[in-house]
């Protein structure tokens, strides 16, 4: 509770501080700055970069302050300090990162652990998209196929991939194949539903307009439906990627010999909390980078998103 109070106090303090400072710094001129009332107008909300940076710094500050870190200038009273097996100070995690990057962990280098996880996620996601998107289109365009696949997709969608792990081991063994199948199953239904929703979201007026100009069915699909469904598919892909990262960690709990999730689990068996934290932070960074990359790709590939 004290932690929460400190955190909220810091948030309020920095907020007040930035509000005070930004009085002098004029915002870029533009339509939004000319609005007189912006509360409730989501399009006028811009993330404050200052706040983002301060937010990360505050987390590190609290982390350091409660773990007696040599990196922070302020420290919590001794009786509140956490012991390293509960929460190691940030520099321990950093040193551990360096040592594992140099010497490896459990016979594999850090890069091997991370790259195998990235490979599993990308392979599973790619296969899921490859099957899921056509499946979603089929369900969005054809009565029979919609009827045929609807019960399957709707049944499988709420089943968490983790619940499938025992079956996957029995059916597909403990090789790489089994892990990728699990991730494929995690991505498949999300991509199918995103594609179907994309098709459903195409404005009927556009379809009619194209028909009245003499478009064939193939042209409708190629020039109207696919471009209009892409924004939904991209949103689905970002969700699927997140779910795949969640699943890969769990998939590596079983019968893995390397991987980011494996590193975390094995370290926890030996109370190496610094390695656990390192793994969590690395997975977070990789997941965040992939999401940023996909957002950028979205901007380039689907510039028409949100414009009619």
């Amino acid at each position, binding site marked *: *509770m004290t932690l929460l109070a400190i955190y909220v106090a810091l948030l309020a303090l920095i907020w007040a501080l930035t509000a005070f400072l930004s009085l002098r710094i004029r915002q870029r001129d533009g339509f939004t700055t000319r609005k007189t009332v912006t509360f409730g107008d989501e399009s006028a909300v811009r993330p404050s970069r200052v706040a983002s940076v301060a937010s990360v710094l505050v987390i590190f500050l609290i982390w350091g302050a409660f773990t007696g870190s040599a990196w922070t200038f302020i420290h919590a009273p001794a009786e509140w300090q956490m012991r390293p097996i509960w929460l190691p100070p940030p520099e321990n995690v950093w040193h551990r990162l360096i040592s594992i990057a140099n010497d490896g962990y459990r016979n594999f280098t850090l890069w091997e652990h991370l790259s195998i996880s990235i490979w599993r996620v990308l392979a599973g996601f790619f296969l899921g998209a490859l099957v899921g998107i056509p499946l979603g289109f089929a369900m969005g365009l054809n009565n029979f196929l919609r009827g045929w696949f609807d019960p399957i997709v709707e049944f499988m969608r709420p089943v968490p991939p983790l619940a499938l792990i025992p079956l996957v081991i029995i059916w597909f063994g403990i090789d790489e194949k089994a892990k990728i199948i699990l991730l494929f199953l995690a991505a498949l239904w999300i991509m199918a539903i995103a594609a179907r929703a994309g098709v459903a979201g195409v404005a009927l007026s556009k379809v009619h307009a194209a028909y009245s100009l003499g478009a064939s069915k193939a042209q409708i699909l190629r020039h109207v439906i696919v471009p209009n469904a892409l924004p939904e598919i991209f949103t689905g892909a970002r969700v699927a990627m997140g779910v795949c990262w969640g699943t890969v960690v769990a998939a590596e709990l*079983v019968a893995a010999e390397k991987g980011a999730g494996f590193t975390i689990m094995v370290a926890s068996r030996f109370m190496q909390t610094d390695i656990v934290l390192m793994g969590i932070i690395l997975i977070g960074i990789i997941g965040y980078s992939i999401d940023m990359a996909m957002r950028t790709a979205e901007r380039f590939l689907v510039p028409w998103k949100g414009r009619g």
Partner: protein
Amino acid sequence: MMKFKLNGLTCSLATAAALLASPVAAMEEVTIAYFLEWPTPNQYAQATGLYEEAMGVRVNWRAFETGVQMSAAMAGGAVQIAFSQGVPPFVVASSAGMDIELAAVAVTYDDNDNCVVHESTGITAENAVELEGQRVAVPLGTAAHYGMLRQLEHFGIDPSNLSIVDLSPADGAAAMARGDVAMACGWGGGLRRMMEYGDVLLTGAEKRELGIRIFDVVSVESGFGAAHPELVASFLRVTDDMNQRFQSDREAMAPVIAEAAGMDMEGTNATLDAFGFPLIEEQLGPEWLGGGLQAFLLEVAEFFVEQGTIESALESYEGVVNTAYMNMAAEM
């Protein structure tokens, strides 16, 4: 009080369990960690409420998957006593500086924790070196892992030449059935299923000769133990009573134990045959709490350090073995 809340908060990284279970202040109930499919005589007392009667508090029994999770739960304050935690998880936790004490030996089982080689490989103790390059399933950080490493050392096999995958005994048995692994290590029901597909390299007696002892311990969260030693002692007293009674009254107790362990009678009897339950007098002797146990813990810890699985060992494990509880129980 603050310390516990903070501990709970950080521990939620590992267990997400603890915050609301802040213990110790008022001791109205005790939570004890145990394993399913791990039949022991004291489960007769667990099932019939004898522990509540003797200890005078409510006793909650929580089933765990591994001894490592038991340590994590004790760290978060959600569990006060772990019955039948493996030696390696205890050594790892105490070496990392966790507040955990060894109070007694729960069960010995050299024959119920072993490595099984798939018969199709044709590997036996004579040509064990041929395991190199093969895939092996073992639950990492457990007694089975320790036993495997010691056996490999005995056969002169470098573990880094094996492809070691982390699998629970049940999953290891499934992988063995599919022929995915050449060797699988584990205990209990998983070990019995593995035996359908192959045989062990060394028997329990042969392992004992090499100094590989396999047993589980009763461990206690130190803060709880210091505040309520009488609860720990009466827990050990009831456990010992059950172990004594088991020697003469097995017929009547076994069905109750099987029920509590979640097993059928056949499996329960097979497992109980492979288990040993040393009584208090024996445990206080030189082989166990009298000094042998402490020396063995140090041996295990140094072996783990050598293998690079833990950072460092304590100088001596006498400080984490508290014989006071057993001495109190012997008086009761």
